[in-house]
């Protein structure tokens, strides 16, 4: 699957021995005490190489842990390694990685989604109990959907992103990826909290996300943003999502079609370039071709366009809760299609053509800055998982987790695991331009 870039075997076993002793003495640090997790390799770990899946950072060893890593370690979670991703988190397939593409455990010919593809593949295949992902345009929710697991992108600023290699800092989020909704609540509980040194961080009263799982959902009003999020749906995805909406209808009070505001004027291509400028000028060819092309576009971005987009983004975030006056949550497909093969994904990404973002369902929620969770809701006829996305107003994580947990209780999709065996053959890949 190529899910891991680094496995920190000795370090994990050493930490486990300390936690064993504490357990034996009856001292548990938190509900996460002794739980093996893994971290997307754009999240800094002190003394452990952190590459962002790029040649540019081939030998980069951070001195400090990211704030979220520090919090999880304090809670007793054990990191067992660093997970592969789309180079610099800049793409939705994890096919473009200096360490080779990640495979989807449900079908090794296909991509797992991205950019947190290694995180989703590892959790789905049972290589760790939970993983951290990051999400700038769907990078937690897309791979969660395509690998049949749960992925939660919290409210912008709820979880610290200090010590995480930025993509577009104004849209970057960090969140948990797990097999169940309860697992995601347990991880979020340890991760959330204000960080003064993170310019994205916001103050918010501490919530008990585990208690939130028990909240009743029968009074919730569900909005369905059919236009444009249900346009051109794959037939099997449509079938799974409509069935999921019928299940939700039984659990909740009402359903009605709604429209969410447009995010068209909020693109910030210059922000990625701001982080990479010096390295890009010095050694552009060390970036893979798709990332290099995006940075070239970023370099051409005008400051005045950036400022206007940033103003539009601020207004959108201030007013987005207005869309939740007559509804409590929205429900929609996480992705409208199943993942392509790794070969197809790599070919498309190396072509200069700018992609059509119209089939994109995840990105708007990064602009809104509101929480969104993807949960497994069925399979296509060829056995690929389908995800349902639930989103709510700012800081409605508890509400989303309660509804997602109720949905999971009423269904069994999350209990299915990929048909992977030790001797499952790994299909060969076609060489790309960059490799010739």
């Amino acid at each position: 699957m190529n899910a891991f870039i680094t496995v920190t075997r000795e370090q994990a076993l050493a930490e486990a021995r300390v936690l064993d002793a504490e357990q034996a003495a009856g001292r548990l640090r938190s509900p996460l005490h002794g739980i093996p997790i893994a971290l997307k390799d754009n999240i800094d770990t002190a003394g452990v190489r952190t590459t962002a899946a790029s040649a540019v950072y081939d030998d980069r060893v951070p001195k400090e842990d990211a704030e979220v890593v520090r919090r999880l370690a304090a809670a007793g979670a054990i990191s067992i390694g660093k997970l592969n991703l789309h180079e610099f988190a800049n793409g939705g397939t994890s096919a473009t990685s200096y360490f080779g593409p990640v495979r989807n455990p449900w079908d090794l010919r296909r991509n797992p989604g991205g950019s947190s593809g290694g995180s989703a593949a590892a959790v789905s295949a049972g290589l760790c109990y939970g993983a951290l992902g990051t999400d700038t345009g769907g990078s937690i929710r897309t791979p969660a959907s395509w690998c049949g697991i749960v992925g939660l992108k919290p409210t912008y600023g709820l979880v610290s992103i200090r010590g995480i290699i930025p993509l577009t800092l104004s849209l970057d989020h960090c969140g948990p990826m797990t097999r169940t909704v309860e697992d995601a609540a347990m991880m979020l509980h340890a991760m959330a909290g204000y960080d003064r040194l993170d310019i994205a961080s916001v103050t918010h009263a501490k919530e008990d996300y585990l208690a939130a799982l028990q909240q009743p959902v029968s009074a919730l009003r569900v909005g369905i943003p059919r236009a444009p999020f249900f346009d051109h749906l794959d037939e099997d995805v449509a079938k799974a999502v409509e069935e999921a909406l019928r299940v939700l209808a039984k659990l909740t009070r009402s359903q009605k079609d709604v429209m969410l505001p447009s995010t068209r004027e909020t693109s910030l291509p210059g922000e990625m370039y701001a982080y990479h400028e010096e390295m890009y000028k010095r050694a552009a060819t060390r970036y893979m071709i798709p990332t290099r092309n995006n940075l070239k576009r970023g370099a051409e971005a005008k400051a005045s366009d950036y400022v206007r987009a940033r103003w539009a983004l601020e207004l959108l975030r201030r007013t987005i809760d207005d869309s939740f006056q007559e509804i409590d949550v929205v429900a929609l497909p996480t992705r409208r299609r199943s993942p392509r093969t790794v070969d197809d994904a790599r070919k498309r990404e190396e072509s200069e053509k700018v992609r059509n973002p119209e089939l994109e369902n995840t990105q708007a929620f990064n602009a809104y800055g509101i929480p969104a969770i993807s949960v497994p809701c069925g399979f296509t006829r060829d056995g690929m998982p389908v995800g349902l996305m639930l989103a709510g107003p700012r800081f409605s994580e508890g509400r989303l987790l309660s509804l997602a947990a109720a949905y999971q209780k009423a269904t069994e999709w999350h209990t299915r695991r990929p048909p992977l065996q030790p001797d499952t053959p790994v299909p060969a890949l076609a060489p790309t331009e960059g490799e010739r």
Partner: protein
Amino acid sequence: MVAGAQSDNPWASESLAGAAAAIRARRVTPSELVRACLERIEIYNPKVECLYHRDA
């Protein structure tokens, strides 16, 4: 319900919450959980597939 990927190691089919409950009940130790994960990584993620070399 649990398919092939999970059947070789009993801890692999547990959710995070299930593993946490087993830790609380002292049915398993953190070291045992870490070893279970490392074993599965060796089986399903045995090598780093490095397609791009620094000198390429």
